[in-house]
């Protein structure tokens, strides 16, 4: 594959702009772009180590900070999953683990992976790094707020980790934190554990709101000249829509956590009905546990798409760049992202078909849920149609993309099982659910993250990651993860319920012992394989091949900065001017197989560009 990287064409961001301001002069009418509406952004440049690297206001550094902290929590989540799999596969070897421990690990694994790892990584990490670069802004619009956002996240993580060391340990109520059990004796960590969990979530939401406002306003109000919404790379669309969802969905989580904390601390009864515990009636009464479930899933379902939409966006860009072909049906892709985002607020109770809510909701939510399947399927078709008649570079990035397609389609199809109300009845609360959501919002987004790391590493550091190690990393991760979760669906068919500390004394479940051992072994392997990446990063930072400018011959703006890696302020003296979408690959008549976004129409006058 190495020949792909030879002769990188160096492109200057300003190459197409002859006269600032645009109108008149020597600029041909064809290339005219409206002058800037607002003057250039005024940035605070840090000078000391603290203002440059710690309390930094540069979105790129903040993005890396988010990335590293999220990865750190992700590794904790990974270790917790090892412990869980040890118990499930080899209970004799896990003699040190009690049921309390197990449930605490389950809970913390879930919460860390969904909120503190994936959400923070996609929006905080990739969002911060890529949005300003991709829309041609100098930085996020409110750099100070952006810095505070990261440090709120930092405190949220500290509080979360602190709960491991308080009496009673972290909460063990499952990542859904359902009351009443979350705050009652009989569940591990029902004292300080759950309180710290709620506090941590509230901090996370507060911090995320600050970051989210930045992402949204940067995309809406700070694009560069010529950058219309319909010229943005899909990565930006995915992150943008996910942020919208986050801004509107996190409030429900905040309210739910706050109310549960009041139930615990003040003895209010928002979610607590009359309860008889160990022969005594507790001083609660009249509340409704199902209300919490509604609030939680009003947050929780959009949360699924907060993780999925950035993944959709990023994968579209990776596939397009590495198959040297425009993304098929760009407008359809954008509308699908927006449509999925909007619909995700009307489907939440499909997590609650057997929760004892009003049974008639089943009809409404099954219908809305299956409607969402249509735009999602369209996205999948467009990805594979982008591969079709492309010129596919089979490098590591592309492997992750292909791995994503397989796992995402698999997980998406099982989603149709669970979304379709009566099919969900036998399967809900079983291992089928675990397999489904790990495939669709665990492994699939992970594939995207890895692909994105291999793709943008040369931008962030100026060096390539090693392809050889990358391939090892990919194949162990993909094959291992697939062999964890694909068979796991069948445990669900047998009827094995989830969140069982130990399960083998039922006659029809004993047949699954072997499978459980196999799954655990695969899980250990996949987890260990992730350290290949860390090794690869360290090694490549030191001895990796120097990438130079625009090593993948991509079109989008982030590769067109005057320096690689980009400096604070991104664009040097002059902001880029955008003339086209980010997907003009292999245009007939063009000299190169790519035409960057900043290339003026007059420069490529003899090509057959269909869309600008």
């Amino acid at each position, binding site marked *: 594959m190495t020949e792909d990287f030879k002769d990188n064409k160096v492109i200057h961001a300003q190459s197409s702009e002859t006269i600032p301001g645009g109108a008149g002069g020597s600029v041909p009418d064809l290339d005219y772009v409206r002058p800037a509406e607002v003057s250039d952004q005024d940035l605070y440049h840090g000078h000391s180590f603290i203002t440059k690297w710690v309390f930094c206001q540069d979105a790129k550094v903040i993005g890396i900070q988010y990335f590293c902290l999220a990865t750190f929590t992700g590794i904790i989540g990974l270790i917790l999953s090892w412990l869980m799999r040890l118990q499930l596969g080899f209970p004799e070897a896990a003699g040190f683990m009690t049921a309390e421990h197990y449930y605490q690990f389950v809970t913390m694994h879930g919460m860390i992976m969904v909120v503190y790892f994936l959400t923070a990584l996609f929006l905080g990490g990739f969002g911060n790094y890529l949005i300003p670069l991709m829309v041609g802004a100098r930085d996020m619009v409110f750099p100070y707020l952006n810095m505070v956002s990261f440090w709120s996240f930092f405190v949220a993580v500290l509080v979360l980790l602190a709960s491991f060391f308080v009496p009673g340990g972290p909460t063990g109520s499952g990542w859904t934190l*359902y009351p009443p059990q979350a705050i009652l004796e009989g569940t591990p960590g029902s004292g300080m554990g759950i309180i710290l969990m709620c506090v941590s979530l509230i901090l996370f939401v507060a911090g995320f709101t600050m970051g989210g406002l930045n992402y949204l306003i940067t995309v809406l109000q700070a694009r560069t000249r010529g950058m219309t919404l319909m010229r943005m790379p899909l990565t930006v669309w995915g992150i943008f829509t996910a942020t919208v969802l986050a801004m509107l969905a996190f409030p429900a989580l905040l309210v739910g956590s706050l109310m549960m904390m009041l139930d615990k601390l003040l003895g209010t009864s928002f979610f607590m009905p009359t*309860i008889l515990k160990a022969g005594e009636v507790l001083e609660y009464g009249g509340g409704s546990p199902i209300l919490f479930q509604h609030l939680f899933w009003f947050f929780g379902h959009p949360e699924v798409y907060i993780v999925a939409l950035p993944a959709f966006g990023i994968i579209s860009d990776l596939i397009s760049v590495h198959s040297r072909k425009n993304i098929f049906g760009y407008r359809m892709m954008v509308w699908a992202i927006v449509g999925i985002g909007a619909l995700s607020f009307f489907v939440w109770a499909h997590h609650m078909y057997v929760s004892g809510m009003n049974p008639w909701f089943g009809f409404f939510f099954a219908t809305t849920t299956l409607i969402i399947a249509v735009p999602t399927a369209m996205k999948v078709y467009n990805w594979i149609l982008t591969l079709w008649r492309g010129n596919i570079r089979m490098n590591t990035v592309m*492997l992750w993309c292909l791995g994503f397609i397989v796992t995402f*389609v698999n997980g998406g*199809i*099982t989603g149709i099982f669970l979304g379709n109300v009566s099919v969900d009845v036998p399967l809900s609360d079983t291992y089928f659910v675990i397999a489904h959501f790990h495939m669709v919002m665990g492994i699939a987004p992970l594939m995207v993250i890895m692909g994105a790391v291999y793709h943008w590493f040369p931008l962030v550091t100026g060096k390539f990651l090693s392809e050889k190690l990358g391939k090892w990393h990919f194949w162990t991760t993909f094959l291992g993860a697939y062999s964890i979760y694909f068979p796991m669906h069948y445990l669900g068919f047998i009827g094995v319920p989830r969140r069982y500390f130990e399960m083998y004394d039922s006659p029809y479940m004993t*047949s699954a012992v072997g499978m459980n051992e196999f799954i655990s072994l695969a899980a250990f392997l996949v987890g260990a394989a992730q350290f290949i990446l860390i090794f690869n990063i360290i090694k490549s930072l030191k001895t990796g091949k120097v990438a130079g400018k625009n090593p993948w011959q991509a079109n989008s703006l982030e590769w067109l900065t005057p320096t690689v890696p980009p400096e604070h302020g991104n664009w040097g003296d002059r902001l880029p001017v955008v003339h086209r979408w980010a997907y003009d690959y292999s245009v007939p008549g063009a000299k190169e*197989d790519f035409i960057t976004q900043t290339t003026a129409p007059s420069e490529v006058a003899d090509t057959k560009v269909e869309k600008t």
Partner: protein
Amino acid sequence: MHAGIIFFLVILGSVLFHIFTPWYWTDIASNWGSMDDTITLTFWIGGGVFVAVCLFMVYCVFKFSYKEERKAEYKPEDKKLERILTWATTLGVAALLAPGLVVWNQYVNVPKNALEIDVMAWQWGWQYRLPGEDGKLGTTKIVNINDNNPFGIILEDPYGKDDIMIQSDVINLKNNRPVKILLRSVDVLHNWYVPQFRAKMDAVPGVVTYYWFEPNKVGEYEVLCAEYCGVGHYAMRGGVKVQSEQDYEIWLQEQETFSELIAKQKKIELNETKLAKK
């Protein structure tokens, strides 16, 4: 090239695994065969799409791998193709949704002749209550629960007196008689789930939830708690015995009603006071 082969093997392996899997659903023992049928239908349509999409991907990998001299096609959109795909998908989704909704409609509408059973859950166990001769269960209140009134039946309620109380985690059911499970919890969320019956529903404190099924295979089954309910969740098991009509009637005769329990308690109390007097 190698990558394409491995991806192909993964798809092939998935299909073979599905065909030859030793792990599949347990033999159904209730009327919810329709759920199995919808699952099978979803498998055919969904599995078909999965295989088709992935094989197409593998084909692309083989056919369009990088060649220096080739240039990719430039085709931003194809309205016709997109329209066809949208409608085909919509049709497929509708075909999956329709049976799902029909079955759900059966699930939430309980037949008139269903026998109501009060399933009471706590951390971590089950007990059951059947209506007596009047065919109706008495109303309950959690604060009434004590040793003499294990179900918290409201004493003034005339329907409650003849209720049959089964203070055991095993319940017997009559074969081919629909039952309406009324779920009640005194502390946290639980879920009364028998894999062979396919059906399940959470027990939520503060409200009563329900579902129904008709057992149609004589035998003994294990009840699992399917909603996380604290550290004892995994050990919260119970049992169901589905019996023929004769066996069921014999079993039913042996059970105690609420008024019998009260009478027994009174007798004990009387004896105790007598003893105390002596």
